[in-house]
């Protein structure tokens, strides 16, 4: 895949190019390139650290949409064994924006569902840019019910700009099907682990995102509306997206501080897109830890704990001047 660079990543491009040039030289048989690479790699690491130690929320938004970021199926291929994809919602069609199936995670059978984005225009049209229609939500739910029946944990990968703003999605009852998923996921008698691996866009993300553990990758986002959408409504200008991103508190760190998510999945230096292998390792580790914890909880208790998890969200004031959280 061709490496792409965001504006603020540009200083890394120059160093990457130099390292590649050395590698070419080395391939050509001249072996004095080694020392130079060590120095350059050091330089790269320092520069990356410098850039990433000071990211704005808007830069994190861009990282969450980075074209080189691994997608749902990349995780499926690399951290699961024996994946079998299952298709269709048993009532209208197979929505390609959502991938669902069963597989093994470190020997344990699990059900997997998630939004899949494309890499190029053709793929993106096929995957609807990761924006599901009602059959996609229903397909995910069908696999979750299968998981419940067979006592398998559900792992949900979230990566979507949001619900699909088109005629068909509305005509087929998008609001209804998202509502039903929230309702049904809250009652699932099996562990549900949700992980945001890129964009967690509003109702589309939540539509497969109600669970016992909500994890977010370090540079992923979770938001009630896209920063651009928020900017155009509240600021009347899309160019205020960076400001809106800050106001919305959509980063993993902010949401962990607010108690909305349960854990942050660390990303390799420079983000998941720069080191897929490491990204898969780190993701698998975190998933493993939380699945183990969830497996020790009795099913009835698990469902009640899930209810309480959402029950306690929200902030308001009441007469007693108590601030609830």
């Amino acid at each position: 895949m061709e490496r792409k660079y965001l504006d603020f990543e540009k200083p890394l491009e120059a160093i990457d190019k130099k390292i590649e040039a050395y590698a070419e030289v080395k391939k050509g048989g001249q072996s004095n390139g080694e020392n130079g690479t060590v120095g350059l790699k050091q330089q790269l690491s320092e520069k990356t650290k410098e850039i990433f130690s000071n990211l704005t929320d808007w830069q994190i938004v861009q990282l969450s949409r980075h074209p080189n970021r691994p997608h749902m199926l990349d995780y499926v291929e690399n951290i699961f064994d024996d994946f079998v994809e299952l298709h269709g919602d048993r009532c209208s069609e197979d929505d390609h924006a959502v991938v669902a199936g069963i597989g093994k995670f470190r020997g344990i059978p699990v059900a997997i569902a998630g939004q899949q984005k494309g890499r190029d225009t053709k793929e993106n049209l096929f995957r609807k840019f990761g924006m599901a229609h009602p059959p996609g939500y229903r397909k995910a739910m069908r696999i979750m019910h299968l998981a419940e029946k067979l006592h398998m944990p559900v792992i949900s990968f979230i990566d979507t700009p949001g619900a699909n703003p088109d005629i068909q999605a509305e005509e087929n009852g998008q609001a209804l099907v998202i509502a039903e998923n929230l309702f049904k996921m809250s009652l699932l008698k099996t562990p549900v682990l949700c992980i945001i691996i890129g964009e967690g866009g509003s109702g589309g993300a939540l539509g497969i995102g109600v669970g016992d553990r909500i994890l977010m990758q370090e540079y992923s986002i979770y938001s009630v509306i896209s920063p651009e959408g928020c900017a155009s409504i509240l600021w009347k200008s899309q160019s205020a997206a960076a400001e809106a991103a800050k106001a919305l508190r959509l980063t993993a760190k902010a949401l962990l501080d607010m108690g909305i998510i349960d854990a942050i999945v660390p990303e390799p230096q420079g983000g998941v897109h720069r080191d897929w292998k490491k990204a898969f390792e780190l993701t698998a580790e975190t998933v493993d830890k939380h699945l183990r914890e969830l497996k020790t909880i009795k099913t009835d208790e698990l469902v009640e704990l899930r209810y309480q998890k959402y029950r306690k969200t929200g902030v308001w004031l009441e007469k007693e001047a108590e601030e609830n959280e």
Partner: protein
Amino acid sequence: MIFKRKKYISIEAREKPEIKKDLWIKCEQCGKLIYKKKWEENFKICMYCDSYGRMTAHERIAQLADPGSFAEQWGDMVSCDPLEFTGVKSYTDKLKEERQKTGLKEGIITGVCKINGVPCALAVIDAGFIMGSMGSVVGEKFTRAAEYAIEKKLPLVSVSGGGGGARMYEGVISLMQMAKTSAAVGKLKKEGLLYLSVLTDPTMGGIAASFASLGDIIIAEPKALIGFAGPRVIEQTIRQKLPAGFQRTEFLFEHGMIDIISKRAELKDAIGKILLVIHS
């Protein structure tokens, strides 16, 4: 989210300003002047073109609850500003403004009442308060109403009308209210209690994609706008005009998503009839 348009514009005063301003309103659909008292007696429906005006939560309760039977609960709950939202306008200022505009503390009123003699828990959204969007208070009060219904073994009736979707000023906390209220409906299911959801114009976004759509029985008023994404957002995305009747009650009814379409004047009886079958 910002509610700029006034639904009913009082006519320009000329000779007798005080009187005219209060006595007459202009229908937004057909533009005809209507005697306000008559219009209110007619449940805010235009007698010339049959278009529905928006009712406030208080008006709705007065219409649906048996006289004197409604007792409000958790009426003092107000929103605060968890994100310390800094935009063109702060959330705190926005809330102040909306409280002044509507005279309400928040976009939902909850309590208990009787409908045609049957006791029930009631939750009514007011579309006038930040467009009836889903914030912490809306989510919490709906959930409490559902839990109260469980405690007292009552049916739950909700009336939704809110076009604002999620409450942007509360970020993901607002999104969580969709999960919270849907889970509360899940509890009602476990307890075997009826949940009746009434949809009025407009029921969109976060409210439509959570509790409002989860009624065991869904009743909608005619011609109400019901859906997830706002029509303007869709038009901008697909760059074409939307078909007539798109996201309207009648269309959804034809597609099997609504049980009953009820005219406003008959709404109380429509609800009462169902409660009577199940609870007497």
